């Protein structure tokens, strides 16, 4: 074994400490899995939330960590959605899990190819190119309606049981458990990526690409890599939607989907992985509530939320969430440190 030089040891120690799961995170996931038994009647909307959360996670990887504004994340979502729908419809790959991974790979391939378009130009150019790619896919899906079903959507998709055992039932119980597990696995992967040295280099090039290049970060290839990975995640989310609903329509590729996604991430906060998840939960229930109040015009209120967030200042929202998180973490750790000493801990009047 090679003896580490003390500085490297210190850095790696620091990184390991940063990457440790905090009690709050454990609580979050325990609660998330507890919803399977807590809200059995709400599984359909919870499934949508989980998918949206995964989709938002993919955008957060490129927006929050690499600083690329994209209005075209729906391209990957939609491509994989159609892909998984088609292979299920024609029985090419019956096993949903394998189909899911394949769809992710297909979306990642598209992400890899289009990432080179995104490397160039200013924010506006990126916005236009990402938007253009998803619109092109939308036009293609519309054009080849004999394959995709066009405006009527892809019909006749039957999804085989998961792992050959669990059927997709009408109430979406198995579908929800499946989505949640996929979300968790993807989250763990994303978490690993973000806390790795690779993730740190992404942060550095988001902060200042020129300086990052100067200390030897290959800016271009890092961006290509993260864009590809994020595309794969978005693809898995899209495939999940198709698998759980056994349906896929043109709106998976629409601009609204990409725009809503931005909103989700903004509500939750960018640049930390839970932003997408929390944002998805808030957004979905906000949407559900608004849609039941005003079925046709909920978009107005969503727009109002966006405008308000920007006018008030995103930093303040982020700051608020961070403050709450910090307080909870402190509370959690205090609770944990006290637990062993519980018998002796007399109420100290606080």
């Amino acid at each position, binding site marked *: 074994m090679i003896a580490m030089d003390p500085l490297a040891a210190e850095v790696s120690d620091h990184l390991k400490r940063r990457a440790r799961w905090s009690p709050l995170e454990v609580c979050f996931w325990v609660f998330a899995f507890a919803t399977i038994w807590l809200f059995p009647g709400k599984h359909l909307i919870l499934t949508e939330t989980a998918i949206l959360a995964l989709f938002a996670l993919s955008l957060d990887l490129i*927006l929050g960590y690499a600083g690329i*504004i994209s*209005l075209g994340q729906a391209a990957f979502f939609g491509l994989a959605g159609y892909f998984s729908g088609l292979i299920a419809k024609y029985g090419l790959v019956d096993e949903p899990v394998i189909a899911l991974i394949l769809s992710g790979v297909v979306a990642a391939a598209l992400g890899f190819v289009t990432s080179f*378009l995104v490397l*160039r*130009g*200013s*924010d*506006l*150019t990126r*916005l*236009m*190119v990402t*938007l*253009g*790619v998803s*619109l*092109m896919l939308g*036009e*293609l899906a*519309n*054009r080849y309606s004999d394959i995709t079903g066009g405006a009527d959507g892809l019909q006749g998709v039957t999804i085989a049981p998961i792992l050959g055992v669990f059927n997709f039932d009408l109430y979406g119980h198995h579908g929800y458990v499946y989505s949640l597990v996929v979300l968790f696995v993807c989250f763990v992967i994303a978490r690993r990526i973000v806390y790795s040295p690779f993730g740190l280099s992404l942060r550095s090039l988001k902060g200042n690409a020129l300086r990052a290049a100067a200390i030897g970060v290959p800016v271009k290839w890092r961006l290509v890599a993260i864009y590809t990975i994020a595309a794969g995640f978005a693809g898995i989310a899209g495939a999940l939607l198709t698998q759980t609903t056994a349906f896929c329509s043109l709106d998976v590729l629409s*601009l*609204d989907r990409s*725009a809503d996604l*931005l*909103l989700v991430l*903004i509500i939750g906060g960018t640049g930390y992985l839970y932003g997408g998840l929390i944002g998805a939960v808030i957004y979905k229930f906000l949407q559900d509530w608004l849609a039941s109040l005003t079925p*046709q*015009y*909920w*978009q*107005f209120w*969503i*727009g*109002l*939320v*966006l*405008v308000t*967030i*920007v*006018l008030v200042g*995103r930093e303040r929202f982020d700051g608020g969430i961070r403050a709450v998180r910090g307080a909870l973490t402190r509370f959690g750790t205090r609770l944990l440190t006290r637990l062993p000493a519980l018998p002796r801990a007399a109420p100290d009047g606080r």
Partner: protein
Amino acid sequence: MLTILFDGLAYGMLLFVLACGLSVTLGLMNFINLAHGSFAMAGGYCTVIIVNRMGVPFALGLPLAFLVTAAIGGLFERTLYVHVYAKSHLDQVLFTIGLVFMSVAAVDYTMGSSQQFVQIPEALQGQFDVFGVGMGKYRLLIIAVCGLLTVALQLILSKTRFGSRLRAAVDDQRVARGLGINVGAVFGITFAFGSGLAGLGGALGAEILGLDPTFPLKYMIYFLIVVTVGGTSSITGPFVASILLGIGDVAGKYYVPKLGAFVIYTIMIVVLLWRPQGLFARNIAR
């Protein structure tokens, strides 16, 4: 063939009038305004109300649409947009998309979701036949009005004091401020004027483009193409870009109707890859 060219020209002219306000705001304040189409829609609906419901003649309805939209634009600029200029591009995109969503739902609520038509006087319907080329009278009017506007804009920009202030502010905002130009005021006026033009375009184009609550979302991409492809440093760039886009779109829909807008998006991406700053951008070192 010539008919396509003619229709495309009319379409392109219309796009230019709709989008030129956007190009100036983008060039001047580096502000990404996705809600530009909402102002165009406001102009369209304004004409519908004025002409159809109140019975004001069409010729008077157009300038009124311009004024009303310019007033709305000015009001929004002073009350809301000013707070967002200094923020990041992401914030600007979010803010303006929010406005688009609100305008779509608000118009849906007040006017209904069906498509609206502006009553065009009979004198403008039908078409001329020139050397075997059918030219719609209304399209001819569009070309005439938009052509005049373009010339007027070019003159304002190049000959008047306000124009030179505006150009100075676009070229280098800080130096312009240093020379005592009130960039904020210049921008406010330009924004209102640009919104007014969008409103006028929306009013004129209601017949060709169709007018329903999803208008801002449907045409947002077209405006952005004009601006990104044309560049933001002059109005010649967006002008050429919108004519090309107009003709390309009409021709594309005529020859390969099933591919729809695919051709346009492909061209846009290729152009942007080739020249990320736009086709006609001067290379200004900033």
